[in-house]
């Protein structure tokens, strides 16, 4: 029997051009590979009874009360809806880089679509924002299954071209989605760390649960270049002609320090941080989400 996880490989997914199909394939593949049910119970805390009104879902009727009092009441819980999740997807110019099966933007979009599909499938409200130096597109939080199309439309950016300004974006996101919820940030974080951390701090301060998917290309992590190369900045005008091998060690040192800084910052604001290589299977993001949910509802 063929391995269902093969559909999680970027090389395979790359052949699926439609993002919704790609997301479905990721999620189904992911679920098929798990032997336990991934669905979690709606063990939301009971709050009060409310008299039945037409249009209420009959599944929520409290039949015991009807038997004792012959009146129709429905149960109301602490949260009357499922999880409210917001996907914040970086579409800045730096996300355009990638020499593998997918560039960072494609990889991030696929993750976002897959997460949206998974969340909508379990009745959670999912919203989506794409951003660079400002918010580019927004999809409101909805629970309907067909809301996936709206999210996918939000992710449909032809060519990322602008710089990243995460602080501004995160402030706007917090304003746009004021209710506490789950913020899923998918970005390469190639921006100044201080504004980034201020934005993350704001989200944490507003009570948002934040998951940070840090997407980087293999090249950015390994720097495997050889031969005389002219590097031109995607978000800056800077350029550099050099022998890459001569600078590799210094580059990896700087990259290591940067990642450590990110990790430390995320830990400080209780942000779930996951570093993703664009060559990695995409189930890592889904597993990270489930792991986060598991921890959140324990």
């Amino acid at each position, binding site marked *: 029997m063929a391995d269902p996880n093969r559909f999680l490989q970027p090389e395979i997914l790359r052949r699926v051009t439609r993002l919704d199909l790609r997301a479905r394939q990721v999620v189904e593949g992911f679920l098929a590979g798990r032997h336990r049910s991934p669905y979690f119970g709606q063990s939301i805390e009971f709050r009060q009874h409310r008299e039945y009104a037409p249009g209420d879902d009959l599944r929520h009727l409290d039949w015991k009360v009807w038997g004792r009092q012959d009146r129709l009441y429905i149960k109301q819980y602490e949260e009357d809806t499922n999880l409210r999740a917001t996907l914040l997807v970086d579409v800045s110019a730096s996300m355009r880089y990638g020499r593998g099966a997918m560039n*960072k933007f494609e990889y991030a979009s696929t993750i976002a679509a897959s997460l949206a599909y998974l969340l909508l499938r379990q009745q959670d409200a999912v919203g989506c924002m794409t951003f660079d130096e400002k918010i580019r597109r927004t999809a409101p939080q909805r629970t309907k299954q067909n809301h996936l199309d709206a999210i996918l439309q939000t992710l449909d950016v032809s060519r990322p071209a602008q710089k990243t300004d995460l602080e501004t974006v995160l402030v706007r996101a917090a304003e746009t989605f004021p209710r506490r919820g789950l913020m899923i940030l998918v970005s390469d974080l190639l921006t100044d760390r201080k504004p980034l951390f201020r934005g993350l701090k704001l989200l944490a301060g507003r009570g948002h649960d934040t998951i940070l998917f840090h997407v980087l290309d*293999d090249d950015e992590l390994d720097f495997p270049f050889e031969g*005389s190369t002219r590097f031109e*900045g995607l978000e800056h005008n*800077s350029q*550099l*002609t050099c*022998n890459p091998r001569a600078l590799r*060690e210094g580059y990896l040192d700087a990259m290591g320090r940067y990642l450590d800084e990110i990790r430390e910052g995320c830990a400080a604001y209780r942000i779930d941080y996951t570093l993703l290589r664009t060559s990695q299977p995409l189930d890592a993001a889904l597993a990270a989400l489930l792991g986060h949910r598991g921890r959140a509802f324990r």
Partner: protein
Amino acid sequence: MTPSFLYPTLAWGLALAAVPVLIHLINLLRQRRVEWAAMEFLLDSQKKNRTWVRLRELLLLLVRMAIIALIVLVAAGPIVGHHLGSLFGSSRIHHVVLLDDSYSMSERTTAGSTFEEAKATIRRIAKGAADDAREQTFTLLRFSETVNHEKKLEPDFFETPIDSRFGERVAKALESLEPSATAVGPEAAVAGLESLLGESQEEERIVYLISDFRRHDWEDASSLRDRLVAMRPSIGRLRLIDTSDVRQSNLTLADLRLLPGNHAVGIPVALEARVINHGSDEAQKTTVSLQQDGQTISTAQIDSIAPGQNATTRFSIRFARPGTHQLQAQLESDPVECDNRRYALVDIPTDNPVLIVDPDGNTPAARTLSIALAPGGPVQTGIAPQVETPRFLGLEKLDKYRAVFLADVDRLESPAIEALERYVADGRGVAFFLGPRTNPVWSNEKLFRDGAGLFPVALGEPTGLTVDRVEQLPDLKPSDHRLFRIFAGKRNRFLDTVKIDRYFTIARSESLETTNLKNSSNADASKTKNQDQNENKKNRSATEILAETRTGAPLVLERRFGKGRVVVILTTASTAWNNWARANPSFVVFLQELQSYLGARPTSNRSHLVGTPLRFSLDSRQYLPEIDLVIPGPEGTSTRRIEARSTPTTTPATSTPKQWELAFYETDRPGLYSASLLTHAQKEEARPLAINVDPEEGNLRQLEPDELNARLDGVPFEYHTAGDYQARPIESEGHNMSLWLFLLLLALLVIEPALARLVSYHPPGKDRLAHANPSLGKGGIRS
């Protein structure tokens, strides 16, 4: 300082050192363009490493350029001069030229001569050195200077400093140089050079051996090779420059000598000239002319001489005056002139006095001998017989007689025996004819003396030879000894008619040798040559049988006594015991031959090879310690006086009178020399001498380069032909840096990979593995 190379053409390859720069520039043009997101970290790394990276890259570039340059330089053989070369060893260049001026170098060629080619090569060497500003010296030693190791070497140049006008000085000095007539080979020249130079650490020597490399000089080069190996520390570089590149034939007049016989005024004497064909083709119709006092007196032609073979021709000359005659034989002109002439001295007496000793002074035997030796009338034999009684032997000096014949002598007084023994021991000849009056007892006791005396055998009793009526074989059976060789012709039957009636038997025959003496002439020659060495041995030599009777009994015997010969004929000279003297022409011929044989004196040592010093030992009581030598020169003769260098010497063992020892070394020209000795009474005595070239030097056959390699195995040398050397710039002399540069190249080849790794041009092994398997994280940061 002008850079110089052993192989200048290869030095153009230095341009290849620019290849790394070109590759770098091409890489800049072909550089990859990458749109990069994480510029922040790249710029950070570049900012921190920029200086070191550029420095290391520059260093790597220079190392790679240096490696290419060094490869080219090692191949091109760079030569540095004094100032830089002194850091690596020598401080001065010494050009040492060994010039072969043996007479084979006079070989005529289309361009002049082999020697002229050699001089041109030396001029090029000198000019090249003069054009170089480095500190250099020059030595020129000709082979002929080393012909005699006793003579002090006088090189034409010796450690002469080289300046800018040195080329002209050398050219001027070379103008007067001509090939010598010597046959000095390379070994003597190298030995001379060794004694001249000694060892030196102060200079780098370049030894040029300029020669025609004739095979005969290199036949046995083992001692030369050993000497060169031993001299290796003192000879920096050895260059063998071959000046002869043509293969020519050459004829050499190897010998001119008087053949044995009765030499006297008016009597035809035979001279033999020997010619060697040193060529590879047969020589036809070779004309040899004979000159006396500059006038051609006879010519002879040799029809054919096979390649590498000898041929002889004879001249029959009649001398009108007695005395020493100077002769010169000459060949027609060929590539080497020096060996086309041969000089000889011939002593011709008025006549040859022969003493016939007869018991009565008038016996038939004496008369027979006298008439046979000098028939008189129109027949000229050049022999003057004198018949005397035995007493004459003890009273008169016998030195003037060419030979002594004793005819049936019955008794001799002791002074006569002693005089006769001295006469023979001194190199003369005596013939005994026996007869009825011969007393064997007395002869055995006084003359034979158990072998210590003059007589060769102990006599027995006379006996008769039985008549052979059946087979009728000749009574006389001669050997092929020189005495009987003239009868060897098949038609000559005179000896067969000789009848022997009686003869003496031999009492003790154990010391007899019945040799046929087939190679008697060669044996004679070798005996003459080694006479001095074998003198003592010959005193006791065995008696040889020269002729036998029909029955095998000895009839004619010979024994050497001292330097002379004793021949015994065991029958009578008269017709008493045989019929030989009775109207048989063979008897006259035999006696003429016998007289010639007995009278042949040991060859006086008056012919010398060129280069051999002339030595004179003069009796101090008779002569003054000086000699005037008349020597031939290019423009006539000249006179040189030599004097004894020290007080007269004496030899204790021989108690001979004190001798003046004189020597003359400048015998480098062939020809006729004359030494004029002066007695205390102011009387001059002339001693003519003939100096001839070594005929072997005329062999122009050359050594092939591969044969030269084999003969000089273990000796590092460069071989050039003179024409090839012409293309070589002299500026290349100096210290060859190839070895040092090669070591530097090896060091850089070790350094380069390490430096390249340091500059990260070579990915480490771990990285290469990571590239092959991306799951390993490529050596970068793990997620």
